[in-house]
């Protein structure tokens, strides 16, 4: 006589150690195997899009800081590019270089957080997380030199960055650039060949490229599936066409590839920063922009390759000082579209790891 079993529904989250915030997953288990899953959002919804409609174009920058709060710099960059596209403003060259340096530093920081928390989800008792945070702290120190804050940066302005980097920023950045490759080697020594990690992640939750593209998945998750779709390369904004870098791609699109691709991207980001340091010249960092920008009536969709995927801002202007519509295309939310499809049939432990490998940020998911 077969054992009679009943599926059981568990609410994983919104208070759970590894849902990366307040995500709630309504999961139906058969034993430990996932039969069905539905993400439930909204626990961190702050109405950023509505708030943005009541703020001037400069004030909105402070809102973008709080979307993906581990990657404020890239949020700023995406918004500022969209606003510049809308208003027809061209940032000066040095400003663009500074933006790229800051954004790439932020990408490294964001990927460090992603890697650390992925390993935490895998059950490594916070050790890789602490190592990753150690390096992230140094990046935050650099941000503090640049703009006086560590998390909510508000560094960029429409038409450049608000202020040039201080004198002591450059030696500190060079020192960081000299140290970081060794730390990356150390992570690789600690993690990439670890049998337990490989066993846990290889071949788990496979996402193929066609499916990923169809579900609008972008960023490292899409590239891990084997499609070299990187807006920095394909649609170079700012000065990305002047720097050399590779787009790392994965093969299988499993959790291991999604983990590995972030480490490879960190190396590429360091390469970009190095070239930027060599190329950056003197000059102004901010175009002459009135403090209250009134873009012409129209709309613009600005997008960048954020650490988590294509981060876009769709701005509609009615000619006033505030955007008429301030829409955020958040990669974290849209990447979660495939979560159900790649999880069904896997186990509870895989669910946590897959969620970690997609690397979401609830501030951006719920906005």
């Amino acid at each position, binding site marked *: 006589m077969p054992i009679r079993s009943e599926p059981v529904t568990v609410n994983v989250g919104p208070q759970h150690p590894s849902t990366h915030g307040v995500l709630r997953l309504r999961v139906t288990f058969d034993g430990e195997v996932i039969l069905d899953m539905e993400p439930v*959002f*909204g626990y961190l*919804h702050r*109405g950023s*899009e*509505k708030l943005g409609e009541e703020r001037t174009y400069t004030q909105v920058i402070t809102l973008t800081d709080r979307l993906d709060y581990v990657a404020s710099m890239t949020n700023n960059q995406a918004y500022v590019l969209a606003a510049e596209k809308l208003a027809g403003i061209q940032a000066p060259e040095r400003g663009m270089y500074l933006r790229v340096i800051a954004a790439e530093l932020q990408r490294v920081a964001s990927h460090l957080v992603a890697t650390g928390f992925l390993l935490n989800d895998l059950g490594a008792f916070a050790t890789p997380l602490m190592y990753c945070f150690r390096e992230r702290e140094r990046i935050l120190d650099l941000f503090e030199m640049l703009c006086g804050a560590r998390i909510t940066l508000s560094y960029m302005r429409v038409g450049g960055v608000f202020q040039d980097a201080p004198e002591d920023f450059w030696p500190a950045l060079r020192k960081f650039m000299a140290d970081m490759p060794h730390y990356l080697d150390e992570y690789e020594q600690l993690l990439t060949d670890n049998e337990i990690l490989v066993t846990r992640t290889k071949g788990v939750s496979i996402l193929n490229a066609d*499916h990923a*593209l*169809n*579900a*609008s*998945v*972008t960023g490292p998750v899409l590239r891990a599936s084997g*499609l070299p*779709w990187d807006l920095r390369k*394909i*649609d*170079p904004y700012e000065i990305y066409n002047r720097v050399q870098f590779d787009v790392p791609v994965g093969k299988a699109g499993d959790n291991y590839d999604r983990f590995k691709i972030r480490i490879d991207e960190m190396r590429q980001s360091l390469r970009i920063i190095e070239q930027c340091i060599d190329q950056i010249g003197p000059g102004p960092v901010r175009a002459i922009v009135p403090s209250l920008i009134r873009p012409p009536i129209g*709309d613009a*969709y600005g*997008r960048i390759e954020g650490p988590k995927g*294509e981060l*876009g801002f*769709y701005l*509609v202007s009615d000619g006033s000082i505030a955007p*008429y*519509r301030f*829409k955020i*295309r958040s990669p974290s*939310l*849209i990447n*979660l*579209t*495939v979560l159900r499809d790649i999880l069904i049939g896997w186990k509870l432990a895989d669910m946590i790891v897959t969620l970690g490998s997609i690397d979401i940020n609830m501030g951006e998911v*719920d*906005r």
Partner: protein
Amino acid sequence: MIREVPGEELARRLQVACPGAVEAWQDISLWVKPQRILEVCRFLNQMPGLEFNLLNSISGVDYIEHFEVVYHVTSTINLHSAVIKARVYGREEPSLPSVVSLWQGADFQEREVWDLMGVRFEGHPNMKRILLWEGYPGFPLRKDYLEAPR
């Protein structure tokens, strides 16, 4: 470099495939009739030479007299992008066909537009609110939504 396909070019091609679907075009934007959005999108998605296989974003904008649903689509094969817009009239039950059957990525985005803007997508398999809870009064991103109900 991703080329932004002018609306005029798309309109010319759509004239043949889906006659009467195009309302207007300007620069890179193309306005189509909301009821025929699925047909237009299927054409854009599957027509060789266009092949818009990546749906970047779906946005809803409230222009008070009508809602505008904006589709940003990109082709990773031909490296071009387009902006498709659909004007939906009526404030009570504005609706237009869903494109989830073409792009799975429309799933959460359409739900978000419904949740915050109140534009319903017909044919969506799971048309529930996404960020707010079921039964939340009003649609916050509409321009006539001024204050959260207590």
